[in-house]
């Protein structure tokens, strides 16, 4: 169950990039970093995905969506869940971070800044609406397990912040 290196067969990349996170439709599962490996072995694509959070209810749907997308390209597939190494927000790509921001979710900061933002009163998370950093933590837990809820004190927009997980 150990898959340290991410290995994805090149021909499968465009197909997997079309599969998105059901909770955050603008974000491809590839940019999210949940696909750990995808290889064509004896005519069957074996895909390993890793959950963002243990209880993430999106994982079953993501697994089904991957199989469906591969089926459309005439690939049979087996999707399995791996826990090691544990997912980290470092695996979200630059493109993924931009997609999050445009969608209204502030992307994760580095671990120290994240601690300051969630525990201290430092105002460093940028509002996704007006870019102000005059923002305030409303709740450490947001609409899904991976997010915290913030509010901008300049434009008054409430928005989600993707918590750093490392």
């Amino acid at each position, binding site marked *: 169950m150990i898959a340290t290196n991410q290995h994805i067969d090149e021909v499968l990349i465009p197909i997997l990039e079309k599969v998105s996170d059901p909770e955050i439709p603008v974000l491809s599962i590839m940019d999210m970093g949940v696909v750990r490996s995808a290889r064509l072995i004896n005519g069957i694509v074996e895909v390993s995905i890793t959950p963002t959070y243990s209880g993430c209810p999106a994982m079953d749907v993501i697994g089904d969506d991957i199989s469906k997308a591969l089926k459309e390209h005439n690939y049979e597939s087996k999707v399995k869940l791996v826990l090691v190494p544990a997912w980290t927000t470092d695996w979200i790509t630059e493109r993924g971070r931009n997609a999050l921001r445009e969608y209204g979710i502030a992307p994760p900061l580095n671990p120290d800044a994240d601690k300051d933002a969630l525990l201290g009163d430092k105002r460093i998370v940028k509002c996704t609406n007006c870019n102000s950093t005059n923002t305030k933590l409303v709740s450490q837990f947001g609409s899904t397990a991976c997010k915290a809820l913030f509010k901008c004190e300049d434009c008054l927009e409430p928005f989600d912040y993707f918590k750093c*997980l490392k």
Partner: protein
Amino acid sequence: MKTNLYNYILELADNCLIGGQRLGELCGHGPSLETDIACTNISLDLFGQTRSYFQYAADIKGGDATEDSIAFLRYEREYKNVLLVEQPNRDFAYTIARQYLFDVFHLLLLEKLQFSQDMTLSAIAKKSIKEVSYHVRFSGDWVKRLGDGTEESHEKMQAAIDGLWTYTNELFEVTEEAKALAEQGIGVDVSKLKETYYQNVTSLLQEATLTVPESKYFQKGGKAGIHTEHMGYLLADMQYMQRAYPNMNW
């Protein structure tokens, strides 16, 4: 079947399952939208961890066992969770105090379990640590906020800590299974976590201007399947669907 390992997994997982079920009761009933969402998110993390443990336990048990049958089709005496996590919500201070007293232990346990010789247990622990670090921050913050808040919130938080204190010592009781597995480097000897636990808890309670209870009278029994009177009601609620509609699926 590796009976020791199977029972040990239940001991680990049942705390997550039953604690998660208690928090889940707040879904739609939390004192504010934010705390409601927080409690149910923590509940979801705990259920996710439970699933990983039970999938492993089902593999070990073999036959018809599934994560669902282990979760829903056991009798009360077969659940190995500590008494602390099954205690009812009563009020928000109770919920938070119960959660905090468990979270501190949970994090210490996982920090050791991640070095288990058993690859699956180690993987589950490594994954869970990240989540539980957030849990203990949340519950610890609220203990401080209520303890060092208004006169009324202080009183309620103190009552909750006093009421639940008697269940804390059981966390460090070492079962036969756990002892055998700890010797093999698979399980964790929880008795060794006790000192750090009480140090951590004491320092936060003091920060919260709360009095650390001095009572030396402690309740136990959960790990042996002997539960408090609240457990039956919890299970009746949790198992209702599987009992009324056997083998139903989502």
